[in-house]
């Protein structure tokens, strides 16, 4: 998180909607209610109280909310639909401090799908973060990211991300423990009917990334994504994890069916940069974070009906896409949009590779990595022969984890002259 350097010295802040959007489908009551919920989002976590005041009071509200067009007497003129959406002023002693302005020429919506307008609640939560003293954050899940990221769901159930929470509590401390979820002020109007949210329970236990055994791993625009159940981690090109805490699958991949709890394979399609997520005998195509169209069968990529994949990757050496299942693999020609003939072939052509890998991905330097369990096998750029020292534990290299104690010798592929007992 980033701090602006200013903070309110009082714990009860007044607010008022000074002007409403013109020609919006949202009623004035809905706008006020959404503002109330957006402020409450910050209030419940910090103990700050927000009190709506009328226009007749002796004092101007701390947070004055306006819907304005073009130049509106501050240093940030609006630019019509798109572009800049809103801004707010940091805390302070000036009369404009804390004030929040929304571009009246946007199509403000509530409860609509992404792309049908701009979700007023999501933008209001962001702007009130500024009103309280937070700057823009680059954290992926933060509401304080400068770019509009689409609707955030039901206002009454929305919770700040860890990054936002830590920034807020750095400035104002934590809310008293009881009752934690008490609203700071009774809503002035009943809350609008919320849109349905994907059923991802916040109480769901977070998996341990150091265990390995990922469902899918993919290099997407230079970052490596590690998928496990309904969660994923991101590794930046610099080798740093975006966060040790995983992000929720459905919060990020917008449109992914809610019942889809496991991604079995993923890759970024070479020619158009689309991201393909595989689960069972189907796959989904995303442009950036947004789903494009419906689920598609793996038969489109040349696999037999009902077949599934363990791993998918695009090999930069020939631009072809490889789909692996067990000990076999298929090759798909993206340019010709058809599977190559003569497949499946035996995976042993990738010398030293484990069969049924969790996933395969190509690093930014062009090396190919097979992942299985808690280990990886590295194939130097252009080579189909694994490095001599493969496999290696993936945790220390990729996930900021300590090296495991268990020996790696038993992970060598090939015939094994050993007995396996139930206790081992």
């Amino acid at each position: 998180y980033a701090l602006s350097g200013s903070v309110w010295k009082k714990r009860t802040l007044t607010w008022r909607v000074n002007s409403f959007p013109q020609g919006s489908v949202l009623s004035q009551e809905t706008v006020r209610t959404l503002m109330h919920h957006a402020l409450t989002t910050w209030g419940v976590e910090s103990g700050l109280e927000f009190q709506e005041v009328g226009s007749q009071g002796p004092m101007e509200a701390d947070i004055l909310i306006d819907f304005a067009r073009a130049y509106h007497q501050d240093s940030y003129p609006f630019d019509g639909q798109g572009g800049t959406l809103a801004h707010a002023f940091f805390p302070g002693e000036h009369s404009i401090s804390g004030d929040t302005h929304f571009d009246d020429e946007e199509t403000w919506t509530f409860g609509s799908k992404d792309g049908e307008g701009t979700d007023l609640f999501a933008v209001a939560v962001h702007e009130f973060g500024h009103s309280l003293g937070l700057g823009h954050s680059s954290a992926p899940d933060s509401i304080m990211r400068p770019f509009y990221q689409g609707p955030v769901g039901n206002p009454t159930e929305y919770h700040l991300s860890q990054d936002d929470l830590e920034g807020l509590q750095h400035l104002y401390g934590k809310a008293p423990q009881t009752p934690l979820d008490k609203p700071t002020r009774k809503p002035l109007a009943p809350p609008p009917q919320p849109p349905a949210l994907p059923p991802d329970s916040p109480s769901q236990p977070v998996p341990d990334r150091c265990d390995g055994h990922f469902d899918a791993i993919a290099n997407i625009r230079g970052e490596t994504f590690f998928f496990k159940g309904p969660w994923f981690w991101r590794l930046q090109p610099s080798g740093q994890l975006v966060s040790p805490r995983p992000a929720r699958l459905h919060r990020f991949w917008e449109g992914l069916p809610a019942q889809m709890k496991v991604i079995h394979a993923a890759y970024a399609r070479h020619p158009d940069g689309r991201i393909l997520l595989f689960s069972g005998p189907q796959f989904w195509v995303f442009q950036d974070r947004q789903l494009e169209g419906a689920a598609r069968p793996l038969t489109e990529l040349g696999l037999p009906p009902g077949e599934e994949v363990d791993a998918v990757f695009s090999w930069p050496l020939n631009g072809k896409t490889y789909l692996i299942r067990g000990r076999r693999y298929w090759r798909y020609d993206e340019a010709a949009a058809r599977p190559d003939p003569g497949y499946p072939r035996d995976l042993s052509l990738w010398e030293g590779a484990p069969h049924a890998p969790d996933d395969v991905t190509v690093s930014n330097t062009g090396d190919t990595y097979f992942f299985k369990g808690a280990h990886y096998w590295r194939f130097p750029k252009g080579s189909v022969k694994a490095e001599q020292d493969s496999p290696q534990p993936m945790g220390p290299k990729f996930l900021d984890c300590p090296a495991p104690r268990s020996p790696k010798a038993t992970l060598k592929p090939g015939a094994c002259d050993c007995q396996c007992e139930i206790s081992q």
Partner: protein
Amino acid sequence: AREPSAQDVSLGVDWLTRYGYLPPPHPAQAQLQSPAKLQDAIKVMQRFAGLPETGVLDPVTVATMHKPRCSLPDVLGAAGLVRRRRR
């Protein structure tokens, strides 16, 4: 990768200046950003936006600059963010 068009570079410099990645132009002099400074500013922007840090105004970076967003700068200057107007 194709070279960014002059229009993209112009948009990029304007965008990077508006959101705090490049210093504001001096009112009394025409200012030409050095390629190295521009590249650094693009890298910081790409890091902030979660894009690969190429330092180049590639199509993904230009597309990100066209995304709807908050008006406030991402990088706060030494003088603070707000040029406030007294009411």
